[in-house]
C-alpha cells in the first residue's frame, strides 16, 4: 500500500454535462465534500484505485471556459494552474458537442493531459448523432471514452484510459490559430519570458491577455514591457474584430471542422430537445410561465415548511422535554442549580437551536437539488429576471427572497445558485428583511392584544414594510458597493432531464452536514453567551432585572425611549431575540410580562413601533452564522449593524410621526 504511486487528477466539464454522475460513478462512496479555500464554492474530492495506482480525483466546479467570468471559473483555473494536476478528465455532453469541446481546447492549450469522457452517448444517439470517437481521439491526440453516466456505462474504460494516460507524455496540442496569430502570441510569450514577475506559463498568459482577461491584464500593469505587448495584440484590432474575437472564432472554427469529420447526423431529431421544448412551451409560456413558477414556489414552500416544521417542532419538543426532565431529576441527585441551568438553558438549548433547523434545511437542499438537476432552476430565473432586475437584483434572487418568508437561514444558503458574487451579496444582505416565520408569533401576540380588530391588516403591513425596505436597501447597497457593475445574464437553458434521486439526497445531506458543522459552533457559542449574561452574577434569578442581561436591558432602555418602548423588559426581549426570534415570546414569559403588564408597558402605537423593530433589528444568531459562512465576516458585520440602525430609525419614525397624528 505504502509505495503505491499516488496521482491527483481533476474532473472538469460544462454545467449540465453529467459531471456529477461521472464523479459518483468513478469514486463510489469514497468521497468527501468541503469548500475551496477562502470561497464558498463547493469542493468535492474522492479517490479510486486502478492497477496499483491510487488516484485522487478533485471535482472542479462546472464551467464553460477558463476565462475568469465567475468565481467557479476562477477557482477551477487557479487549481489547474497552481496545483498542476497529473491529468484532467473532461466530461463532454455528446449531445451538445461544439460548445462542450471549447473547454477541452482551452485545457489542451493550458498544456494539460486530457482524457475526454464523451457522456450522454445515448442521448446523442437518440438525436441521430453518430460520433466517431476514435477519429476524434486521433485528431485531438487524446483518449476519448464514450460513457453513459446514469447507467454506469464506460466507467471501467474511463478508469483504464486515465491510468494509461498518466504514464504517457503530454502530446502537442492541435494548432488552429494560424501563422499570424501564433507569431504574435509567441512574440508576446518572448516578452513575457523576459519579465521577472511572470510566474505562470507564458503561453497561457499570452492567450489570456489576448482574451482580455481582467486578472491577467492587472498583472500586466505591473510589468515593464506592457506597452510592447499591448501593441502586438492590438495589431489585430479593426472595426469588425479584434484578437479576442479571433481566438474564439479560430477555436470554434476548429471544433466545427472536427465535428464535421467525426460526427454524422442521421437526419434524426433530438427527442431530448423536443421533449424539453414541449415542457418549455408550458414552463416559460407567456401566460402560464409566471403562474406555474409561483405554483412551484408555493409547492417548495409547502414542502420545506409544512413538512419540515412538524419535524422541527418534534425536535424542539424533544429537546424541551430532555431539559425539563433533567431539571426535574438533577436536583434530586444533588447537582448544583447553576450547573443544571448551564446544561439545560445553555448547552441543550444551544444544540437544540441548531438541530431545529435540520429538517427545513435538508428539505430545502433536496428541493433545490431537484430544481437544479431537472433544469427548472434556470427557467425560474428566466421567468423572474425582468422583475428582479428592475429591483436591482438577479432573476435567481427571487427564490432566496421568497424563502426568506419561511426562514432566512435556508434562504441565504439558497443564494448559492447566483453566479455573480455581487448579486449574491446583495441578496444575502437584504434577505433578513423578509419577515421569517419565527417573527410571526410576536406579531400575533401583540396584535392580538392591541389590534384585535385589524389584526390581519396590521400583520400584512409589517410584511409589506419588510419587502419595501428590502428593495430600497438593495438599491442603496448596489449604489454604494457595486455601482457600475450590473452582472450580465447570459445563461444556458439546459434540456430538462429526470433527476437521479441518489444524487439529489446525497447532495442535500452533505450540504446539511456542512451547515451543521459551520453554523453550529457560532450558534452554540451565542446561546451560551446569552445564558451566561442571564445567569450572572451567581445566585441571581435567571434573566431578572438584577442579572447582567437585565442590567444591560436597563442600560439600553433609554436608547429605545424615543421609539416608545423604553422599558428594560422590552430591551431584554430584544436581546434574547438575537438568539432566535421565536425566543422573544418565551422571554416575555420568563420575565413574567403578562397581558396586564404589556398594557402598562405599551400603547398600540409603541407596540407597532416595537413590531417594526422586531421585524428589522438584527438577524438571529443562526442567520448571522450562515451569513458569516456564506459571505465572510465583514459582510456579516454589516448585515448585523445596518438592520440595527435601520430598525431603530424606523421604530423611532413610526412612534414619533404616529404621536403627531394621534396626539
Amino acid at each position, binding site marked *: 500500500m505504502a509505495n503505491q504511486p499516488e496521482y491527483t487528477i481533476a474532473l472538469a466539464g460544462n454545467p449540465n454535462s453529467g459531471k456529477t454522475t461521472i464523479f459518483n460513478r468513478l469514486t463510489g462512496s469514497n468521497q468527501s465534500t468541503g469548500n475551496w479555500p477562502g470561497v464558498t464554492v463547493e469542493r468535492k474530492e474522492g479517490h479510486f484505485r486502478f492497477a496499483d495506482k491510487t488516484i485522487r480525483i478533485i471535482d472542479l466546479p462546472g464551467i464553460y471556459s477558463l476565462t475568469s467570468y465567475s468565481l467557479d471559473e476562477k477557482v477551477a483555473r487557479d487549481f489547474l494552474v497552481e496545483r498542476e494536476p497529473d491529468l484532467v478528465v473532461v466530461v463532454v455532453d455528446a449531445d451538445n458537442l461544439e460548445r462542450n469541446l471549447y473547454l477541452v481546447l482551452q485545457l489542451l492549450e493550458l498544456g494539460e493531459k486530457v482524457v475526454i469522457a464523451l457522456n450522454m452517448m445515448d442521448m446523442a444517439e437518440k438525436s441521430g448523432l453518430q460520433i466517431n470517437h476514435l477519429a476524434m481521439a486521433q485528431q485531438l491526440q487524446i483518449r476519448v471514452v464514450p460513457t453513459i453516466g446514469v447507467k454506469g456505462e464506460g466507467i471501467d474504460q474511463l478508469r483504464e484510459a486515465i491510468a494509461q494516460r498518466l504514464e504517457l507524455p503530454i502530446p502537442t496540442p492541435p494548432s488552429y490559430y494560424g501563422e499570424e496569430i501564433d507569431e504574435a502570441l509567441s512574440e508576446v510569450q518572448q516578452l513575457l519570458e523576459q519579465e521577472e514577475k511572470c510566474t505562470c506559463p507564458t503561453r497561457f498568459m499570452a492567450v489570456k491577455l489576448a*482574451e482580455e482577461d481582467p486578472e491577467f491584464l492587472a498583472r500586466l500593469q505591473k510589468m515593464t514591457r506592457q506597452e510592447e505587448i499591448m501593441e502586438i495584440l492590438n495589431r489585430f484590432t479593426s472595426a469588425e474584430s479584434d484578437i479576442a474575437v479571433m481566438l474564439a472564432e479560430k477555436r470554434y472554427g476548429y471544433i466545427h471542422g472536427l465535428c464535421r469529420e467525426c460526427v454524422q447526423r442521421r437526419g434524426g431529431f433530438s427527442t431530448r430537445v423536443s421533449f424539453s421544448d414541449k415542457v418549455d412551451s408550458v414552463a416559460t409560456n407567456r401566460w402560464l410561465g409566471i403562474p406555474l413558477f409561483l405554483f412551484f414556489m408555493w409547492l417548495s414552500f409547502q414542502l420545506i415548511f409544512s413538512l419540515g416544521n412538524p419535524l422541527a417542532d418534534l425536535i424542539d419538543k424533544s429537546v424541551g422535554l430532555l431539559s425539563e426532565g433533567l431539571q426535574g431529576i438533577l436536583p434530586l441527585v444533588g447537582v448544583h442549580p447553576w450547573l443544571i441551568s448551564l446544561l439545560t438553558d445553555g448547552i441543550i438549548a444551544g444544540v437544540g437551536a441548531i438541530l431545529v433547523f435540520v429538517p427545513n434545511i435538508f428539505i430545502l437542499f433536496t428541493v433545490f437539488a431537484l430544481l437544479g438537476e431537472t433544469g427548472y432552476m434556470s427557467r425560474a430565473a428566466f421567468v423572474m429576471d425582468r422583475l428582479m432586475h428592475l429591483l436591482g437584483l438577479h432573476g435567481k434572487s427571487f427564490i432566496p427572497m421568497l424563502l426568506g418568508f419561511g426562514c432566512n437561514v435556508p434562504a441565504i444558503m439558497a443564494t448559492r445558485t447566483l453566479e455573480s458574487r455581487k448579486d449574491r451579496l446583495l441578496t444575502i444582505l437584504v434577505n433578513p428583511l423578509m419577515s421569517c416565520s419565527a417573527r410571526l408569533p410576536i406579531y400575533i401576540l401583540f396584535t392580538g392584544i392591541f389590534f384585535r380588530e385589524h389584526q390581519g391588516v396590521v400583520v400584512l403591513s409589517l410584511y409589506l414594510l419588510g419587502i419595501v425596505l428590502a428593495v430600497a436597501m438593495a438599491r442603496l447597497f448596489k449604489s454604494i458597493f457595486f455601482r457600475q457593475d450590473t452582472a450580465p445574464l447570459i445563461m*444556458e437553458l439546459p434540456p430538462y432531464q429526470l433527476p437521479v434521486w441518489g444524487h439529489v439526497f446525497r447532495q442535500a445531506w452533505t450540504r446539511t452536514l456542512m451547515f451543521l458543522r459551520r453554523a453550529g459552533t457560532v450558534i452554540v457559542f451565542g446561546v451560551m453567551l446569552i445564558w451566561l449574561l442571564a445567569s450572572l452574577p451567581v445566585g441571581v434569578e435567571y434573566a431578572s432585572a438584577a442579572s447582567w442581561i437585565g442590567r444591560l436591558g436597563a442600560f439600553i432602555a433609554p436608547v429605545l425611549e424615543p421609539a416608545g418602548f423604553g422599558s428594560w423588559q422590552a430591551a431584554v426581549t430584544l436581546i434574547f431575540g438575537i438568539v432566535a426570534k421565536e425566543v422573544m415570546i418565551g422571554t416575555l414569559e420568563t420575565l413574567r410580562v403578562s397581558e396586564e403588564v404589556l398594557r402598562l408597558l405599551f400603547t398600540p402605537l409603541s407596540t407597532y413601533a416595537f413590531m417594526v423593530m422586531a421585524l428589522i433589528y438584527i438577524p438571529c444568531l443562526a442567520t448571522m452564522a450562515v451569513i458569516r459562512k456564506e459571505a465572510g465576516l465583514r459582510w456579516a458585520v454589516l448585515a448585523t449593524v445596518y438592520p440595527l440602525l435601520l430598525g431603530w430609525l424606523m421604530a423611532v419614525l413610526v412612534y414619533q410621526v404616529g404621536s403627531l397624528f394621534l396626539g
Partner: protein
Amino acid sequence: MKQLTESLEDYLEMVWVLSLRKGVVRVKDLAANLKVSSASATTAVKNLAILNLVEHEKYGHIRLTDEGLEQAQDVYERHVALNRFFTGILGVDQAIAENDACEVEHHLSRDTFNRLLRFIHLLEQHRNQLTWLSDLENANLDTSDVTLPAHIVTLKDYRPGDSGVVQRILAQGRVKRRLLDMGVLPGESIHLIKLAPLGDPLEILIKGYRLSLRREEAAAVQMKAKAIL
C-alpha cells in the same frame, strides 16, 4: 481648354447659368449675381471676349461662344460634382454645400482638385457596388451619434421567430468574453425562440443549444440581416 483665373471662371460660369435661366445675359445682371461692381463685370467680360469665350451683342447682351460654352459647362460640372458630393454623400446642408463647393474649388490646387473630382466620379459610378455608402448615408441622418448609428440591427431588435447571422460583438469586457465563450461569434446563426413572460430576457438557439440573455446583452450583438423563417 484655356487656363482661366478663378475669377474669370466664375464669370464664365455665371454667364452660362444666367443664359440658361433667363435666355439673355446682361453685364448688369452678371454684376448683381456675382455681387461685384458693373465696372469689374465689364472688365471681366472684355477679358473673356479677348479669349474668344464670349461675344458682345447688341443692346449690351453677352453670348457664349462654342468654346466658351464648353468651358463654362466644364466649370459648372465640376462645381456641381463637388456640390453633389457634399450634399448627396456627406449629407451637408444645400446652402452650406453651395458655398463650400466654391471655397474648395478656389482654394485647392488645380491638380488636387482634378484628382478629387476623378475620385468623386468613380464613387458615383460604382455607387451600387459600395455597400458601405448606404451605411454612410444612414449615419448622416444622425449626426449626434457617430459611434453607433441608429440603423444597426442588433439581436435586441429581433422578434420571436426571427433568424439571422451575427455580424460582430459590440460589447466589451466580461459581457464580450462570456458571449464569445458561449459561442456567440461573428458568422454564427441565431434563432430567437421566445421572450420571457415579462418581455425580458430572450431565449435564443445557438450552436444547437438554448441560451438566455437580457435585452441589454442582446443589444451588444450586431446582426447581419434579419430573415423570417
